[in-house]
């Protein structure tokens, strides 16, 4: 599969294609390049480790929105069985930028809900680039209440640039939809585990992010505003996105340090897009562990713990 490549991945990609050529050549001409091949393989591995150890915040943000990164439906595919998608907010329509439904995660039935981005233009248009309209958030609320009714835990997968800033979105109450989501999530009586799998963009991300546990994939980001948007407003220049990305402290290790997220979920070397299956299996284990722990809490304890968790957030003197 032809993969799109971010700037900093290019040297790795170039070496990899050289490797491919050489392998192909060796096979065709029956020449023994094995020592060269293993040499390059070693080089690729080292280069990948070096680059990924030293990613700048903006590079991490780019990785978080890498088009080849696993999206919600990919994780659902690799982590769960018997997923049945449920659609519509029963008020206006079905927003395809948020998907959700019951499924089995290991031995549990869970409600899984997440923002869904597309991989190509056609898919992205259908999914509105993962940017939900109010009906998306209202669908999410409906499905969460459904899960609560049947005492099923809820998993949300966060991956959005933000709530859609469109005309119809405003007419149909984008602000109210997000606000209501925050309030309703805070009082759900079933376990809620939220995972930022890619881009955690602002209120549109938080709207499905009020959980008993909040996890972040290693190369995901979570921020009040995109680095580009922040640079445009505060630096008055989109070129300052690298500075803004740094200043916003939006990477998974940053948020773990701040106590905003509970856990950073490791990704395979080179990022989740290099190995969906491995990434999904690491996340599945983390989810299982968290759900096991939360299963011991009573409905009242779950509400109390979630409220207390968010009550403590803030930094002042």
């Amino acid at each position, binding site marked *: 599969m032809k993969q799109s490549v971010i700037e900093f991945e290019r040297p790795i990609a170039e070496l990899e294609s050289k490797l491919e050529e050489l392998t192909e050549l060796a096979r065709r001409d029956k020449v023994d390049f094995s020592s060269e091949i293993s040499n390059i393989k070693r080089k690729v591995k080292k280069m990948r480790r070096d680059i990924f150890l030293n990613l700048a915040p903006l590079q991490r943000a780019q990785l978080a929105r890498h088009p080849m990164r696993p999206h919600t439906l990919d994780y659902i595919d690799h982590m769960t069985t018997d997923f049945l998608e449920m659609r519509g907010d029963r008020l206006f329509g079905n927003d395809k930028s948020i998907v959700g439904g019951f499924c089995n995660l290991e031995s549990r039935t869970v409600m899984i809900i997440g923002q869904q981005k597309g991989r190509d233009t056609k898919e992205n248009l259908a999914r509105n680039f993962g940017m939900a309209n109010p009906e998306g958030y209202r669908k999410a609320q409906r499905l969460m209440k459904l899960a609560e009714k049947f005492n099923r835990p809820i998993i949300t997968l966060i991956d959005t640039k933000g709530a859609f800033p469109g005309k119809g979105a405003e007419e149909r*109450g984008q602000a*109210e939809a997000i606000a209501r989501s925050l309030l309703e999530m805070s009082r759900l009586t079933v376990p809620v585990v939220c995972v930022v799998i890619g881009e955690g963009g602002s209120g549109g991300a938080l709207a499905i992010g009020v959980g008993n546990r909040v996890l972040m994939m290693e190369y995901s980001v979570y921020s009040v505003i995109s680095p580009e948007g922040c640079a445009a*407003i505060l630096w008055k220049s989109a070129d300052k996105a690298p500075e803004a990305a740094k200043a916003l402290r939006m990477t998974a290790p940053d948020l773990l340090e701040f106590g905003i997220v509970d856990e950073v979920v490791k990704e395979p070397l080179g990022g989740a897009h290099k190995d969906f299956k491995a990434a999904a299996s690491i996340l599945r284990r983390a989810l299982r562990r968290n759900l096991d722990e939360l299963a011991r809490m009573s409905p009242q304890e779950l509400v109390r713990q979630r409220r207390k968790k968010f*009550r403590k957030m803030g*930094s002042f003197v």
Partner: protein
Amino acid sequence: MSWFSKVKKPLEAITSRDKIPEGIWKKCDECKAIIYGQELDNNFQVCPKCGHHHRLSARERIRLLIDEGTFQEKDGELAPNDPLKFRDSKKYKDRIAESKKKTGLNESAISGSGLMCNRPVEIAVLDFDFIGGTLGSVAGEKITRTIERSIRSRHPAIIVSSSGGARMQEGIFSLMQMAKTSSALGELDELKIPFISLLAHPVTGGVSASFAMLGDVIIAEPKALIGFAGPRVIEETIREQLPEGFQRSEFMMDHGFVDMVVPRLELKETMAKLLDHMCGAIACLLPLESKEDSTDSAKSGA
């Protein structure tokens, strides 16, 4: 005072303008009339000529809504720190210092307890002049504590919003104030304690997408801009110009997201009446039948 007498004064006063020191006269943003500043102040920044609502400071807002001498400020000592050590073209710390100087406030929110037409309430007010009324950790904390005071005292909560949204300089901490305040409102809701949300120009972003849109009753001042995304962002996204009045109070009311649009000078009375409707002392729990019965028996007894 009649509307007409309010109009007359500034117009005739223009002639003597050059004799008066700077700053005493103000120009209405809407009708451009030159108005005597003191008169605008007395009118809570509502233009006496055209009724345009100019920005009102948080202190003045409290003077407007809370009975004189009854306001007790709470948590006034809370001050922002700088968790991200944020610096753009300016240091965040310097921005705070400037806003403090400009507004005389410690932060974008003032909160406290007081009486509204003799009814005890807990109130928090955002001030747009303090970094755009943005929701940082301090404002989020003050609003949450206001809601918690309501929960303890069982007095209604009033939150007045005028804000550009979350405060970028506090990054993720700012975003989380949306969840913190909304979660507290969930508890208030369960205890059936009224919450009136008052929206004053403008209310956007993380403030509209949290507590501001969660009122049992949502009141807006005339022509306030209310929405999630700002109009410029929407226009850039959809590549067309938005119609006149888009996202304004009246538009929001027509689209079902605001209960009523109320002029500033009528707010206090309206809110007090609403509080009576929601939690007044008048017994409304008696079934209608028995009320009629008692009237009947009173009649027959007479």
